[in-house]
């Protein structure tokens, strides 16, 4: 069970207080109406789903109610950082080249 740092509460909290909300930084196309079915489908459903470093969106439902991002390794489950919406996070590793 994860111990997750909420960047708003400023504390490490138990996973049970949070919900995972999928891959982070998936921007809504600026002009949806101009998207092809394919572009729209990609936005809706297609994901990087990496084995390794992953930026993802979580929400502190039982706590402050805020959405935020965590940078986590999906293989080791290690969390490398939590950061607020709008902030950026970079791994010291160059390994993260595939990231957006």
């Amino acid at each position, binding site marked *: 069970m994860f111990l997750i740092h909420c960047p708003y509460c400023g504390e490490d909290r138990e996973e049970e207080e949070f*919900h995972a909300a999928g891959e982070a930084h998936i921007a809504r196309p600026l002009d949806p109406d101009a998207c092809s079915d394919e572009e*729209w*489908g990609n936005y809706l459903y297609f994901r990087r789903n990496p084995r390794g470093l992953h930026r993802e969106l979580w929400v502190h439902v039982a706590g402050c109610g805020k959405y935020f991002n965590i940078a986590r390794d999906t293989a080791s*489950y290690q969390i490398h950082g939590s950061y607020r919406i709008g902030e950026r996070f970079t791994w010291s590793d160059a390994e993260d080249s595939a990231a957006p």
Partner: protein
Amino acid sequence: MSIDPNYLRANQGFRLADGGRIDRGDPLIFSFAGRRLMGYRGDTLASALLANGVRIVGRSFKYARPRGIVCAGVEEPNAILQIGGREETQTPNVRATEQPLIDGMVTRPVNGWPNADADLMSIFGSLGGALMTPGFYYKTFMFPASRWESYEWFIRRAAGLGKSSKLPDPDRYDHMNHHVDVLVVGAGPTGLAAALAASESGKRVLLIDERSEAGGSLLWSGDADKYAWGEAIDAMLPMQWVANAVRRLDANPQVARLTHTTVTGYHDHNFLTAWERRDDTCAFSGSDTVPGTRQRLHKIRAASVVLATGAHERPLVFANNDLPGCMTASAVSEYIRRYAVIPGNRLVVMTANDGGYRAAFDWKQAGREVVAVIDPRHDPDSSAIQQAREAGITVLTGSALVEARGRKGVTGALVAPINKLATFVTGDTRLLACDTIATSGGWSPAVHLSCHTGSRPVWDDAAIGFVPGPTTERRYAGGSLLGHHALAQCLADGTEIGAQACSVYSDEQREGSIAASVPQVQSSNTTEAAPMALFAVPHPKPSSRAPKQFVDFQNDVTAAGIEQSTREGFESIEHVKRYNALGFGTDQGKTGNVNGMAIVARALGKTLPEVGTTVFRPNYTPVTMGAVGGAHVRELFDPERYTPMHRWHVKAGAEFENVGQWKRPWYYPQGNESMSEAIAREQLATRNGVGILDASTLGKIDIRGPDAREFLARVYTNSWAKLAPGRCRYGLMCGEDGMVMDDGVTACLADDHFHMTTTTGGAAHVLSWLELWQQTEWPELDIFFTSVTDQWATISIAGPNSRALLDELTDDIDLSAEAFGFMDFRTGHVAGIAARVFRISFTGDLSYEINVPAHHGQTVWDALFNCGERYGLTPYGTETMHVLRAEKGFIIVGQDTDGSVTPYDLDHGWAVAGNKPFSFIGKRGMQRSDCTREERKQLVGLKCSDPNTVIPEGAQAVRDPAQPIPMSMVGHVTSSYYSAFLGRSIAMGVIKGGLKRKGEKVYFPLADGRTLEATLCDPVFLDPEGARGKV
């Protein structure tokens, strides 16, 4: 009990006259397989059985061979018993070696018919033994195919260990959360030293051990001893040192200690679970007193974890090594020293290391005969051997015990000389008469916990075992767990890692600079001979032809079976595990796994590290399901949410419906009314007079901010730009895929202030959906959402008399049609309470939704009833609400939609404003090519040709009922009722191309053989002009 205790006491023929950590003043009487026996407080069930000379404790799983107690701790594979005198407390598969003896306890073997001593199945076992090799099932029982089910019936009945109760468990379980700086697992010398060192930091320390008291292996090796291990710690006898350490720890308020508590799982980010056995006395003694909490699961989050879990002794693999009387060497010592129980009279020891000699010394000291110690090492030189010889014990080096003899227990040991590598027998065998065989193949570190988070153990040649591998957790290990068997080393390890573990916070304290002093060991043990890596003992015959050599006792896995599987291509240790069920038992292979791996390595010509281990997973030892569930059972399984008027509904005799976590009144039967009668009555009363519904469960969200309007326009499909204060609007909410997700009415309180309602079940999801968009996508919008679901009691009154009724209770709201029109919203007072009143309708009739602060809900509800009688005020529940709305063709999201329905499919195109400037959520999704197909399933009304027949909900529609199966289906019924008001059945459903096919017929072939016919129609069955609501 009626039996004379003195008689029972005298029956403990294998109890030593003195010694042991038992309380002879507290005799406990228990039964095993129907026999009454006696033991003492401090005994385990196993030690008490041995004291009474019980040798056979069960029959083996596959071959029904007699089995006895092998170990003294959690690694025990055989002594798995059924406990419980009453049906509701029947507890299967309890390890006798761990279970404290309880007065009045009723115990039985789990297998054996008519009993374990004389099991008839053993006849099959020995006959079938030759056939029932690995893969047996996969290779047979295939013909004829139809017979498999009956074969299986027999297989299932033969399998399984104990039996479950069939009555609900009367006991209570709970959970306890902990946050500590240092968790120390294991209270042997290593763990105690670690806890002592850590406790000096002032940090929070938790020390846990599965045994009934601290001390670990010192419990069987740490008291006065005149042989090689006459050790002292800080000039105290080891067990005195333990007592002293425990005193110091208990005096420290920052230290907590749990005994009889097993750390069962090590999860990510240093989260561990520990299972505490608190109180089994009531359950097992048959007493009727109300029990407290039987077991508790501790959930521990630790900044760092110290593992000091020690090691398990490996029995050697030799022919017939499963005969009762074969034990591990340390178990023999533990029974003698800790419990004052001698498991037999004549002992043969076979050990590949010096430690095994202890069993011989203890045995001799207890005054019994040691026949010989067999040591496979050629000319080892150690104090142990010297002292053994000095004590007159025969030591045969360069030899092996190749086979045990006996039928229901050991009667002899076959011994032979072997080569230096211990790979084959080099000379003639010799039979030694004995009744007990103690073996030690070495020690397997208890790496289990260290592996649970995915870390793989690594082979350590010096330890002759797997030790914990690298991890990303803050985890420290020491002592026997690292293969360090010298007591001084264990204490040094513990002190060091204890200090390290608590210094992770402060940089200046790194690397164990806490000045805890290492307890000093004084020992007379001077020379040690290197242990030998021996696992399976050679036999004059190949293992396929020798008597069975057991590796995993619980699953009857043999050396020959393992070799056969490698021959069949099962080369991965994981395949071997699964093909043989090696390590699959309740002991998870604690004694058998490494031996099994060694046999695989031998068969494949690989090294043990090349073969590797299987994956260790929780649980370390099995945990009751009740403890895992904790107190969240029965009425606490999931919260029940109540509306402010809940108790009134209960008193009014309502039947309730579960909607999400809410309890909603479903209908209110009166007298002997049936459900349909009650609903008909509620419907008619509402349509003709006035009905009242508790709608407090609706989700309610207060939305405020200058950008509220813009936001609503983005998340709803329709337009919000022109909704004036004081007005309400219905909205559909879609996902980005264009599928309907929720609906509800939103009122405009002020230009920048809205009151949104959602479905009961969708409330939480909708709020987080709004937050998601606002927080992550449009943070620039100045707007706030606050859940006010619980703040407002919502009372809906519907029916032609609703205005008159409400008028009685309000002075400051003008209810006239002109002043307060349909879809208007007003604030004012109802029954003296400040209220928000919406004139909206889910029934099609004149209707008001009164919202008052929840703490006044009951007051207003009562006030309505106070003057309601003359209007025929009738409470109605969700079922009537469903009928009333269906008469009007109003949808229920989740019932009439299922995640594959767009607003257009619902013919709700009117609620979609395609020309809004912002491409609202769902707009693009509903325009995808498949979502605009002509022949999509669309919501229509359905009129059954027989007006008295209600088409079942979920009935599937076909156009041609005569077609053969598989039929081509065109849709299904989503809502269907008998409308008492219309005097006929009505239904809605989604039908392919339905909107263009109104007037056509569809058919519903039902499971009961009937085929119903219905005509597609408009879903508004009542008052299509909407006149009733607008009066």
